[in-house]
């Protein structure tokens, strides 16, 4: 019987990396993800984890080191937060296009300016066009679980893509919650060793990444796009296998909480979904038919799954903890793709969004009351008054 203990999201992510027996780790400190690396450093120093622990000279270097390590056949791991994530931007596409399935743990943090240690999702969200797998946890347990699931999916030979496993800074990364770690046998059954394709070798010499002509570019892009058509199936298989082996069941793409008979719904990602669940329960007691859809994967975006989960709902409120200045809705990032997912339904839900939790602020139960009120009003009026509401402003 696996032991349950209290640990933060950072420690849980590190335990996940340890369970995955990562071989090359590249560190660089930035709040709030640093503790992941501190935990791993202790594990390596104590001989609990046989890995190379490399002190990168910056986040760009971190990604570059794990690119090289993955290209040479090692399971590689790194992480960052906030502007560290954006500093490494140059390296994301080379890793995704080079098909190096290393993993990056992200504990979200607002982007500068100026320095703000609170959590916003914009850091990781701004990388979403680079071709990585990208998903969010809402608890330390899920951070641990997603670490293993992401490696399993990313290293699958039908996929071979790097993965970003995200958790809200401070709310998840620093607040302990109960986590059950997997037994070694369970992890070994779930996650096979990394089996690289054409890694840098002395016995089978290969060239990684020669220059190409423009006409060779489109097929390169097309191959990467083709892979993303395959990825959802691999995610479903892996999530089902995870449930079988570890006994923890996740909806592969969208956690659906009391959504079946909901008239209005919150669409949310990450830590604040914990408050949302409690808010849904309270509102239900008051007679409001509300549910919650929590997004687990941003890339691949589960278009059909979201349409299926939310298609019957009359109004959806997107809780946005990221910014997309000048974007179509002049709000956050999730709303654009959510609206796109629902667009082709015969009977589309009304959709609006709520900028909340920005700067790392708490989203209070009262905020959810307010949002439910807005959504209920929209259903009554049968129209969307505004694309975006800035909570408190």
């Amino acid at each position, binding site marked *: 019987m696996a032991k349950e203990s209290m640990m933060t999201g950072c420690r849980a992510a590190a335990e996940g990396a340890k369970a995955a027996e990562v071989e090359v780790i590249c560190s660089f400190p930035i709040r709030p993800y640093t503790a992941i690396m501190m935990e791993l450093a202790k594990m390596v120093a104590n001989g609990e984890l046989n890995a190379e622990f490399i002190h990168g000279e910056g986040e760009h270097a971190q990604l570059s080191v794990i690119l090289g390590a993955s290209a040479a056949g090692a399971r590689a791991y790194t992480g960052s937060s906030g502007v560290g994530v954006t500093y490494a931007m140059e390296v994301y596409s080379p890793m995704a296009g080079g098909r190096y399935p290393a993993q990056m743990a992200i504990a979200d943090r607002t982007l500068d300016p100026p320095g703000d240690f609170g959590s916003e999702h914009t850091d990781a969200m701004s990388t979403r066009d680079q071709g990585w797998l990208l998903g969010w946890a809402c608890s330390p347990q899920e951070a641990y679980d997603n670490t293993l699931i992401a490696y399993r999916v990313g290293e699958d030979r039908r996929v*071979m893509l790097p993965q970003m496993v995200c958790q809200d800074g401070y709310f998840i990364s620093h607040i302990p919650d109960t986590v059950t770690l997997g037994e070694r046998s369970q992890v070994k059954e779930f996650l096979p060793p990394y089996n690289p394709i054409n890694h840098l070798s002395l016995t089978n010499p*290969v060239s990684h990444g020669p220059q190409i002509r423009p006409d*060779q570019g489109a097929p390169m892009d097309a191959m990467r796009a083709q892979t993303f058509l395959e990825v959802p199936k691999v995610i479903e298989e892996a999530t089902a296998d995870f449930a079988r082996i570890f006994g923890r069941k996740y909806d592969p793409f969208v956690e659906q909480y009391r959504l079946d008979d909901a008239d209005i719904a919150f669409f949310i990602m990450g830590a604040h979904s914990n408050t949302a669940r409690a808010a849904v329960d309270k509102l239900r007691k008051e007679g409001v038919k509300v549910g919650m859809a929590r997004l687990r994967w941003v890339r691949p975006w589960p278009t059909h799954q979201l*349409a299926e989960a939310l298609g019957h709902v009359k109004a959806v409120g997107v809780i946005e903890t990221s910014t997309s200045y000048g974007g179509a809705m002049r709000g956050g990032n999730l709303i654009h793709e959510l609206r796109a997912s629902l667009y082709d339904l015969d009977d589309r839900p009304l959709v609006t969004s709520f900028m909340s939790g920005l700067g790392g602020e708490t989203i209070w139960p009262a905020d959810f009351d307010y949002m439910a009120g807005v959504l209920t009003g929209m259903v009554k009026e049968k129209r969307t008054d505004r694309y975006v509401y800035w909570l408190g402003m």
Partner: protein
Amino acid sequence: MSKEDKMAKRLPGYGTIDIPEDRVVPFGAVTPAPVGTQKLFQTSNWRVVRPVKDDEKCTRCLQCYLACPDACWTYKEETDSLEWVGDFCKGCQVCIQACSVDGALVAAPELDFEGGVVRLEKPF
């Protein structure tokens, strides 16, 4: 049929992506290392002159051999043979300039040679 399958039928699909065979590119842009020479990039059509060795004068100092960026000179110690392989020679004349003996290596115009002034079917 699952609810999701029914939904997928009503919604647009993601389509299929079919890369024609003559446009297929290697996975992850990883190519095997070439063996011997990289035949996919021909450069013999660059030159307008080629080096010609006077074997009597040549002292096998091997300056030419170690001055060619394109490895156009091959040397075999067992037979003491130094030969020019023109498959990739760009006619830069570094070897001629580097030659330590007057007249052992001279530049001759391509037009003087049968099959000189190489033409390629396709540029690359």
